[in-house]
């Protein structure tokens, strides 16, 4: 076998290069580089032109300065309450939703992990199935549930619990329901992956030695499942913080979440530099949780290797 021809060696090296470089280059151009552009434009002034912002460098003859940059957008973010309220409210809604997902998702993931293998597959499949079907349509489904003459109000009135329909849709409550509903699978799956690996002999040993179930849970199961809790919580918290569709469809006018504010700033006011500044600040807020998430993912993969 003529396996060591120099030609073939070159092919091997080229193949190796290709495997790494092709996806690397794509992500570099279309994922990483755009952030630099957002950053750049956040220092520009909005103008009525195509594109609607001033250039950072201007080498044309009629320009009085070849370099132009302004901090006005960031100053505006600090001064205008709208943005403060949006960031804080997004943070609050994302945080509470994450806690709610954890409260509902943990017992479910635990129950699935303790089920018999056949049941486990079925239950897990039923968690994943809604995740495959349209996100937009699942949020839409809650509009029908929560509206003034929707399913929940009709039910409550027909059993005589209330006489007047409650205002459920277009409230913060609806946004919480929507986020918990949409992101619950993201909480359950990593928790399940973690809990199913736990050695339940430990629990039985503790029980044989007389430990109460709650104590066993607190001292054994809970500490061992912390990696799952972290992964699940970040998978819910980070996207929820910048969520647009759910507050836009289920929230009221006062449900100011930053994703929605950014979207409106961009599409209604056409202020590209200001939206870039809003996005830059949001990215800075997210850098830390994302680094924790990445660190966690790498640890997980190294462990499995």
């Amino acid at each position, binding site marked *: 076998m003529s396996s060591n021809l120099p030609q*073939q060696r070159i*092919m*091997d090296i080229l*193949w190796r290069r290709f*495997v*790494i470089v092709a*996806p*690397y280059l794509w*992500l*570099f*151009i*279309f*994922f990483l*580089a755009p*952030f630099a*552009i*957002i950053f750049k*434009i956040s220092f520009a002034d909005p103008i009525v032109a195509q*594109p609607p912002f001033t250039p950072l460098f201007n080498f044309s003859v009629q320009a009085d300065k070849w370099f132009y940059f302004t901090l006005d957008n960031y100053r505006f973010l600090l001064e205008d309450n709208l943005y403060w309220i949006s960031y804080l409210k997004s943070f609050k809604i994302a945080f509470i939703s994450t806690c709610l997902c954890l409260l509902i998702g943990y*017992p*479910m993931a*635990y*129950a*699935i992990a303790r089920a018999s293998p056949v049941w486990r597959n079925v*239950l897990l499949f*039923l968690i994943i*199935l*809604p995740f*495959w*079907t*349209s*996100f*937009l*349509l*699942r949020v*839409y489904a*809650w*509009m*029908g*549930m929560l509206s003034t*003459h929707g399913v929940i109000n*009709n039910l409550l009135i027909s059993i005589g619990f209330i006489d007047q329909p409650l205002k459920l849709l277009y409230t913060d409550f609806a946004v919480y329901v929507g986020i918990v*509903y949409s992101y*619950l699978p993201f909480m359950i799956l990593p928790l399940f992956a973690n809990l199913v690996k736990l050695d339940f002999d430990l629990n039985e040993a503790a029980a044989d030695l007389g430990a109460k*179930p709650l104590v066993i849970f607190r001292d054994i199961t809970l500490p061992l499942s912390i990696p799952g809790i972290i992964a699940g919580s*970040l998978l819910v918290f*980070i*996207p929820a913080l*910048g*969520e*647009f*569709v759910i507050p836009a469809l289920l929230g009221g006018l006062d449900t100011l979440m930053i*994703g929605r504010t950014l979207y409106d700033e961009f599409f209604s006011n056409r202020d590209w530099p200001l939206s870039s500044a809003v*996005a830059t600040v*949001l990215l800075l807020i*997210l850098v830390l949780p994302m680094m924790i998430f*990445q660190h966690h*993912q790498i640890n997980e*993969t190294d462990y*499995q290797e």
Partner: protein
Amino acid sequence: MNRQRSTFLITVLCFGYAFLYIPIIMVMIYSFNDSRIVSVWGGFSFRWYLALLDNRQIIEAALLSLRIAFISATIATILGTLAGLALTRMGRFRGRILFTGMIVAPLVMPEVITGLSLLLLFVSLQDFIGWPGERGATTIMIGHITFSMAYVAVIVQSRLMSMDQSLEEAAMDLGGRPFRVMIDITLPIIAPAMLSGWLLAFTLSLDDLVIASFVSGPGASTLPMWIYSKIRLGVTPDINALATIIITIVSIGVVIAGWLMLRQEKQRQQDVQLAYNNNL
């Protein structure tokens, strides 16, 4: 005590699954409602389904979305599989940390940021090199490839990590070139993961509203963009029908794909068992 615990867990599961499924089931039921007023039941009818067939806008938007989803899922599967291979089979290389970061970040990155940043990239590229010209299907595809290849990469990566590397090593020791080993040995084993990656990329693309709204031009309106423009103002019966159709098709597809993969996995395990017994 044990009985108490399992009663608690079963109750939690029942409520949890009810929470996940009742809203979708209600949409499906109301899609057959004859009444124009969404909340009042006016008898069973297919009229909203028939109305959809007459709506040229929906059909055009759906065809555009399917085309974008098909092409972007295919390219995302190729790039994502390469990324998965790079992360598991290429050892250490320069910029690996940045690479893993770029794979992991799109999974959690809020869509408004991805959408805005891609649009600004396209506008800047237009200024410098005169490409991509008109924004539309192509720019939407690029956006979808970028975030869905990360999902494919993660799925393929976890499959590659769980698979037995000794097969590939044996083939290499016998003089197989890396490219051929990958085609003959690795690919058949990770094919199910690539298929689920493709399906996921396909549905993610079919479903995306935010990124498409940012990077699309005036001409191109995808199905989610069309749906969003209608449901912003409230619940409408024809969207109920459309939702029922989409959810039913996707669910059937996922069930069939899941079943095929389960069967293939069983077959593989049987083959392994058989080979083992024959060698005893």
